[in-house]
């Protein structure tokens, strides 16, 4: 299985190697395919892109979006920024953490939902806002978010 993942990561890297500065597109594509960036694939990615495994690690660990372990079946991104705070985002975040039993970046015990903070989703005029996977939601409540995040991911 791991060998297969590594081979597929190598293929993804090779497909992007013609770009100037291919690493971020590669990492996005790898995470899209596997839900995370497997550390075991670093040497293969490095080889294809002419980088060191340390450089891959440095980049993966810098960006909040990239994870090296699988996340939940759905990712719930809740905005913590000022415009959403003006409409109660601080209390919303606390409520969600309590309902899901996780801290920020945590995944529920049943693996259904990962809770991520976001610093602005550009939905500031219908705050507080969130994304359930890629679905934008405005004027949200904790009730509705929890329901949508768990929907079909139980």
């Amino acid at each position, binding site marked *: 299985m791991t060998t297969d993942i590594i081979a597929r990561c190598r293929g993804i890297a090779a497909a992007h190697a013609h770009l100037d500065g291919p690493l*971020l597109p590669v990492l996005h594509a790898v995470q899209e395919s596997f839900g995370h960036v497997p550390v075991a694939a670093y040497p293969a990615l490095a080889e294809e892109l002419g980088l060191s495994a340390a450089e891959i690690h440095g980049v993966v660990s810098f960006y909040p979006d990239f994870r090296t372990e699988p996340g939940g079946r759905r990712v719930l991104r809740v905005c913590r920024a000022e415009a*959403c705070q*003006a409409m109660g985002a601080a209390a919303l975040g606390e409520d969600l953490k309590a309902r899901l039993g996780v801290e920020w970046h945590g995944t529920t015990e049943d693996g259904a939902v990962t809770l991520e903070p976001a610093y*602005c989703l550009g939905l500031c005029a219908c705050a507080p806002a969130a994304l359930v996977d890629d679905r934008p*939601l405005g004027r949200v409540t904790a009730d509705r978010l929890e329901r949508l995040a768990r929907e079909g991911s139980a």
Partner: protein
Amino acid sequence: MSLTLYLPLDAAALALGADEIAEALRTEAEARGLDLVLKRTGTRGMVWLEPLLEIEENGLRMGFGPLEPADVPALFDSAFEDHPKALGPVEQIPFFARQTRLAFARCGIVEPLDLDAYRAQGGMKGLERAMTMTPEEIVAEITASGLRGRGGAGFPTGIKWKTVLEAEGARKAVVCNADEGDSGTFADRMLIEGDPFCLIEGMAICARAVGADRGYVYMRSEYPQAIAMLDASLRVAREAGILGDHFDIEDRVGAGSYVCGEETALLNSMEGKRGIVRPKPPLPAHKGFMGRPTVVNNLITLASVPAILSEGAEHYRSFGLGRSLGTVPLQIAGNVRYGGLFEAAFGMTIGELVEGVCGGTASGRPVKAVQIGGPLGAYFPRSLFDTPLGYEECDAAGGLIGHAGLVVFDDTVEMGAMARFAMEFCAVESCGTCTPCRIGAVRGMETIDRILAGDPAAPAILADLCETMRAGSLCALGGFTPYPVESALRHFPEDFGGAREAAE
């Protein structure tokens, strides 16, 4: 019988249920045997009215909103006339009628991927004119327009383009900074989702002016709908021959890092590196993406270019105030009654916009503070509401206009908590390159906690820390975090307990 309706597909409209309205419209039309043509446009920017449905009557677009699925059957019953959610002609709604739409002229009107509609509404005239001009003439036109960077720094765009035009380099690049991370801003997202060809046209004009063969749009992963729309629009533009071997545009997607909105961190990120800030010099205009001379412009700067070329520099600079010329898409958000995007000439006052145009708070309570320019912008109290919205004017009032986002807070906000959040945000997002930002933000949080706990020694320490961050940080993240912190302390000392007064 055929029925044509217009409904936004902008992320904010989707966030408020536009797709559910679309579904209800289709169901209802089918039940009535009507042939529904549902055109999905961008948004007009009146977010409190979303989902906002429009129908054309006698050349006017009539609006209905904010809609819920349950409203739909009655809309058909009333033949789209007399309905409780009827708003009349959309462009006569005061919020819309008071605007001057140049960059957003087509947003909310056309289907974003309909190139013929883009041309019919005046699109491509700027690029067509640019093709008849020399690079020097284009740069001169942009310089004469007075256009300045809409990302917040306000650097004259013409000077930046001239520097790249004159720089030596076998290849040059145009980079659109669409890493719109400031809370309270969504103009970049709205333009890409509503009128992506405007950006493509602006970048193509820039490429011709400076001699670039490649363009890049650095997008945010937090904007999945905008990414999809940009990609689709690039395909259409390639098929139409607007993009091709002579000049092509790629999208690049960030990965949740705020500091990548800083131009040198953005270039590092595009090159596949950690998004850390580069010292300047060298300027990106001399050595930018992959070492090539590079224009890095904010999306709204580039989207302002087509109208300047099509209508002329004199037309553009006839709007504005002082050295802030042209129009600016003001974005009003947070706790606001009528929130959205309001494109207008520079110079409207904060109070006129927030209370006159936008109706004050959504909660109905008094406005206490308005943060302008994102998480690195100052909090303005009511006593400064006569400040005109312009680069120098906001600066003189102790703040900055930034990317022109205004976040409204009512009187329940605790400014001590907001000041602490500014430091927390800086700590979370610091790239770690320079010490004042990396260490200062953490110490700043601790020191604000001490102030809030009543420590009389803490305010002086915070003032000293802010001075160090302002003077010693490599970029605006550490350098501008003192704006929200100190403006909160200065204008709302009562929210920091008695410690501050004791220290003075």
